[in-house]
C-alpha cells in the first residue's frame, strides 16, 4: 500500500520510506506491517490511544529498537546499512524527558549533538567552541542558559536544551517522542513553533508523537492515526480530523470545530 501524498506535493522527494515494517519486542508484535513515507519540509504527526505503539515506532525509526521485519529506507539507502554514527547525522530525536545523572552544563549537553559529526579517537564528546553549537543555542533562545547546569533547569528549559541538541545534530529528519507532553502550554507551543520554523525554512522532515489533539491540529500538516498495531487512517490534517474518525480512534464522542480566524481545526470532548 503506497501512501497518498497530500495534494500539491506529488513531486516531493521521499526522505524516509517504511515498507511492511513490523515493530515490537521479541515475540510481541506491537506494530504490524506498516507502510508510510516522510517528506522534507513536512510536519507529520502520530496520534493514537496509549499503548498503541507510537513510541515504539519512533524508537524503531532511530534504531534504538531493531525492527522485527520489513524495510526502512532513508534517501533511498537501506537504514540498516548505515552505521549508528552516520544515522545520527541524519535522524535526531527529542525525547519526552531524560533523567540526567550528572550536572553537565547546558552548552556541554548541546555540544553532544555534534558527536556524530566528530571523528578521530580522542575527538568524541563535545566540541564546545563549535559555531553550530552557538547557532543551536541561539535558535532555541537559550544562549543565556549556556553555563547553567542542566540539572538545575525547569522542565520547559530542559526540553529546549534537548531540542537545541537535536538541532545541533543537523538532522534531515527530526523525531519528537511526546516531547511536549509534560510541558505547560506556552513551553509546548514555543517548542512546536521552533520546530515548525525549521520545517518551513530548512525543509526538515518531522515526525511528532502527540497526545494533545489540539496541538496536533495546530502544528501537523499530515497525520498518521494508529490503533491496534496498524496505521488506521492517514492523510492531511484537515481531512482526517473528523468526528467519525476520531471517535473510532479514541472510542469517545468527540466534536470537531473550526474556530473563526484560526484556519485550523480544533477538537473537544462531547459530554
Amino acid at each position: 500500500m503506497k501512501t497518498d501524498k497530500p495534494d500539491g506535493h506529488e513531486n516531493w522527494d521521499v526522505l524516509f520510506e517504511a515498507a511492511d515494517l513490523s515493530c515490537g519486542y521479541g515475540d510481541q508484535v506491537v506494530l504490524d506491517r506498516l507502510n508510510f513515507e516522510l517528506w522534507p519540509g513536512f510536519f507529520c504527526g502520530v496520534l493514537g490511544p496509549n499503548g498503541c505503539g507510537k513510541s515504539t515506532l519512533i524508537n524503531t525509526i532511530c534504531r534504538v529498537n531493531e525492527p522485527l521485519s520489513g524495510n526502512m529506507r532513508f534517501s533511498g539507502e537501506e537504514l540498516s546499512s548505515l552505521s549508528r554514527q552516520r544515522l545520527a547525522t541524519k535522524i535526531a530525536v527529542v525525547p519526552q524527558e531524560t533523567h540526567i545523572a550528572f550536572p553537565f552544563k547546558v552548552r556541554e549537553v548541546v555540544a553532544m549533538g555534534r558527536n556524530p559529526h566528530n571523528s578521530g579517537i580522542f575527538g568524541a564528546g563535545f566540541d564546545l567552541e563549535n559555531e553550530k553549537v552557538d547557532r543551536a543555542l541561539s535558535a532555541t533562545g537559550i544562549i543565556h542558559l549556556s553555563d547553567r547546569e542542566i540539572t538545575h533547569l525547569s522542565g520547559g528549559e530542559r526540553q529546549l536544551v534537548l531540542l537545541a541538541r537535536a538541532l545541533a545534530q543537523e538532522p534531515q529528519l527530526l523525531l519528537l517522542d511526546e516531547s511536549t507532553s509534560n510541558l505547560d502550554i506556552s513551553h509546548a507551543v514555543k517548542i512546536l513553533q521552533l520546530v515548525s520554523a525549521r520545517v518551513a525554512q530548512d525543509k526538515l522532515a518531522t515526525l511528532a508523537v502527540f497526545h494533545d489533539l489540539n496541538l496536533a491540529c495546530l502544528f501537523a500538516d499530515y497525520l498518521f492515526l494508529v490503533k491496534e498495531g496498524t496505521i488506521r487512517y492517514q492523510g492531511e490534517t484537515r481531512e482526517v480530523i473528523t468526528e467519525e474518525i476520531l471517535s473510532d480512534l479514541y472510542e469517545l464522542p468527540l466534536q470537531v470545530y473550526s474556530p473563526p480566524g484560526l484556519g485550523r481545526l480544533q477538537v473537544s470532548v462531547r459530554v
Partner: protein
Amino acid sequence: MIIGAAAVGAARLPLSSVWQVFADLFSGVSGSVAMGSVDGVGSAARMIVLDVRLPRIMSALLVGSALGVAGAVFQGLLLNSLADPFTIGVSAGAAFGATIAILLPTYLVLPAFLSDAAIVPGFAFVGALFSLSLVYYIARNRGRVMPESMILAGVIVASFLSALISFCQSIAGEKLAAVVFWIMGGFSGAMWSQVLLLLPYCLVCMLILQAHAGDLNIMAMGDTTALQLGVEVYKIRRRLLMVAALMTAAAVSVSGVIGFVGLVVPHINRILLGPDHRRLLPASALLGGLVLVAADTLARTAAGATEIPVGVVTALLGAPFFCIIFKKKFHQ
C-alpha cells in the same frame, strides 16, 4: 612529593641525599658518569631509596592511578555514584585467589622458586578474572549488559566469594595472619618487577579508557539518548567494563584490597572539575596516585616500625576529608 616520600621511613635519610640519589640516577641515564657514591651519598642510602622505597612508591602511584581512573569509569558507566572499582566483585575474586595462594603451601609442596611473593599476585589476578567472568556471565542478557544487573551480579558473586574466603580463613591456622594482612592491602612487598609489569599494562588500559571519555559523557544521558546520538552503547559499555575491571584486577593483585581511593577520588574531582570525563579520568589518575603515595608513606611511618595497613589509612583520613568537601559543596 616522591622525593619526600622516599626520604622518610624506618631509616631516616636527609632530603639532600635522596635528591642526590635521584640526580645520579637521571644523570646516569643520560649518559654521564654516575658520581653518587663518590659524592658521599652512601651506597646504603642508595640501596634503600632505589631498591626498597622507590618500587614501593611507584607501586602505590600506579595502583592509586588505576583505582582512581577505574572508579571514575565505573561510576560513569553504572550511572551510580556509589560505584567503585570493587562494585562488580573484582576485589573478592582477587582476595579469594590470594587466599588460595597463601594456603597452598600448607597442602602442596611447591618448587622453591614459587615463593609467596611470586604466586600470590598471579593467583589474585586469576581470581579477579574468574569473578569478573562470572559476574559478566550472570549479568549478560541477549548480548547486552545492563548496569543494574551488573551491580546485582557483582554483589551476589562477591558475597559468595567472601563466604569462601571466610571458610578458608577458618581452616588457615597459622597462615590466618598472612591472609588477613593481604586482604587489608599494602605495598610492603613491592618489587621493581611488579612495577615494570604494571606500568605498561595500566598505561594501555588508561589510554583505551581515555579514548572513550567522550562516549562516557554521552552515555551518562542514558542508553536511549546515547544510541540516538550515534554511540554504540552496548559495545562500548562492554569494552569499558572489561578494560576498567582488568586494570582493577592487576592493581588489586599487586596491592590487596585498598578501598576508598576508587570511590572518593572521582567524587572529589567531579566536585572540583565538573562531570566531563575527558578531564575527570586524567585528573583521577593524578589524584589517585598522589593520595595513595601519601597514604602509604603515612602507613609505613606513622606508627614507628609497625606498618598500618594502607587501606586503613585511606579510609581513616579519606572519609572525614570527603565529608568536609561534600558538606561545603552542598551547603553553598
